[in-house]
C-alpha cells in the first residue's frame, strides 16, 4: 500500500480505530493515576517526511520522548512525547512526591515513565488487536530527553527507504486540566497498513 493512495473512507476507519484504541489507553492511565484523563479525537494525517518534526513540536524543541515498536501481525513505530514539565508532573503523581531538580533523569523516574508508556501502548494495541482480530504487541520502551527532531528521526529513517510521506496518527491527552499533557503518535509501516485496513473491512 502506498500511503498516498488511501481513500477518505480508509482514513476515517483509521481515525475510528485509533479513537477506540486511545480511549482504552486513557482509561488505563486514569486508573493508574486515579485521576481523570481527557483525550482529543485522533488526527490521521499524511505528512511530508520533512514536516513530521514540526508536528512533534519543532525540530530542536527539548522533549521527553519514548519510543516503542508495534510488533505482531502489523508493525510500526509508536512515540509518546511530553513537554519536560509534564513528564515531571506525571512522575510526581505516580511516585506521590515532589521531584527535585533533574530528578526526572533518575533511574526511578525514567523507569516510572517507561511503565506509563508501556501501559498506554499495550492498552492501545490490545484494543486495536481485539477489535480487528489480529495479534499486536509492543516492545519495551526506550526513553530520551532531547530535541524532538532527533527523537523522531529513527522512526522516519525506516519509512523513507520505501515511502515518500509518513502516515501519522496523533492524539493529544490531558490530565487534570492541562497540568500534564502529552502526544501519542503511531507511524505504521507501509506494509502493515494493508493488514490493518483489511482487518477493518476497508481493504482494496
Amino acid at each position: 500500500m502506498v500511503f498516498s493512495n488511501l481513500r477518505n473512507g480508509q482514513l476515517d476507519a483509521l481515525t475510528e480505530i485509533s479513537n477506540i484504541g486511545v480511549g482504552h489507553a486513557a482509561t488505563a492511565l486514569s486508573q493508574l493515576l486515579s485521576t481523570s484523563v481527557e483525550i482529543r479525537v485522533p488526527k490521521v494525517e499524511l505528512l511530508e517526511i520533512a514536516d513530521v518534526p514540526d508536528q512533534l513540536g519543532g525540530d530542536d524543541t527539548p522533549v521527553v520522548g519514548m519510543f516503542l515498536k508495534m510488533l505482531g501481525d502489523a508493525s510500526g513505530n509508536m512515540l509518546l512525547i511530553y513537554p519536560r514539565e509534564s513528564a515531571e508532573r506525571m512522575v510526581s503523581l505516580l511516585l506521590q512526591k515532589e521531584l527535585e531538580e533533574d530528578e526526572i533523569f533518575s533511574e526511578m523516574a525514567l523507569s516510572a515513565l517507561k511503565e506509563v508508556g508501556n501501559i498506554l501502548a499495550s492498552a492501545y494495541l490490545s484494543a486495536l488487536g481485539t477489535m480487528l482480530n489480529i495479534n499486536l504487541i509492543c516492545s519495551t520502551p526506550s526513553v530520551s530527553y532531547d530535541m524532538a527532531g532527533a527523537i523522531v528521526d529513527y522512526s522516519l529513517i525506516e519509512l523513507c527507504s520505501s515511502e515518500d510521506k509518513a502516515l501519522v496518527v496523533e492524539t493529544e491527552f490531558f490530565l487534570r486540566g492541562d497540568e500534564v499533557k502529552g502526544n501519542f503518535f503511531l507511524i505504521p509501516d507501509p506494509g502493515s497498513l494493508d493488514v490493518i485496513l483489511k482487518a477493518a473491512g476497508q481493504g482494496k
Partner: protein
Amino acid sequence: MEGDSNIIKVKIADYKIGTAPDILVTKGLGSCVGLSIYDKETRVGCLAHIMLPTSNKKVAEKFYPRYADTAIDRMIEMLNEKGCTLANMEAKMAGGASMFPGLKKENKGVGDRNVEAVLELLQRHEISLIGSDTGGSYGRSVEFCTDSGEMSIKSIQHGILKI
C-alpha cells in the same frame, strides 16, 4: 555580522547551498548526519541533512538528499555550478548518534552506518574531512557559517561546540 547574514534552513532529507555571509542551519539531527562541503576560496558552502547511507536503487531526484551517496554527488555538482573546484572543497560533519542505544542492535546502528558511508564517499571524491563530531546518544543542531567556514554544533547536554 549575523545581522546582515541570510539564515537558510535545511530540513530533514534536504540540502541547501549558500554564499558568504549566509548561514545554513539544520536542526534536530539524531542518527541523521549534517554534512557541510565548503570552498574556502569562493566561500560557497552546501549543507545536507542526510538520513541513510545509500540509495541502493535508482531514486528520483527529489530523494537525492536522503542518501549519503546521491547527496554528496549532487552537492559537488551544485558547488561546481557556483564556480567551486573540487580541490578547494573541505567537509565537516555532525550527528550519526544512536538515540536509543538499546535499539542499536536492532537497527544495526544506522547512525554509525551513516558516518561510515560519508567518510568513505568523501575519500572516494578526495575531499578532506577537516572536522567532525559524531556518535553518542544525543541530538545535535548545526549552524554552518559560509563566511568563516565554521560549523557550530549545539546539543542539550553539551552546549555549543565549534569545529
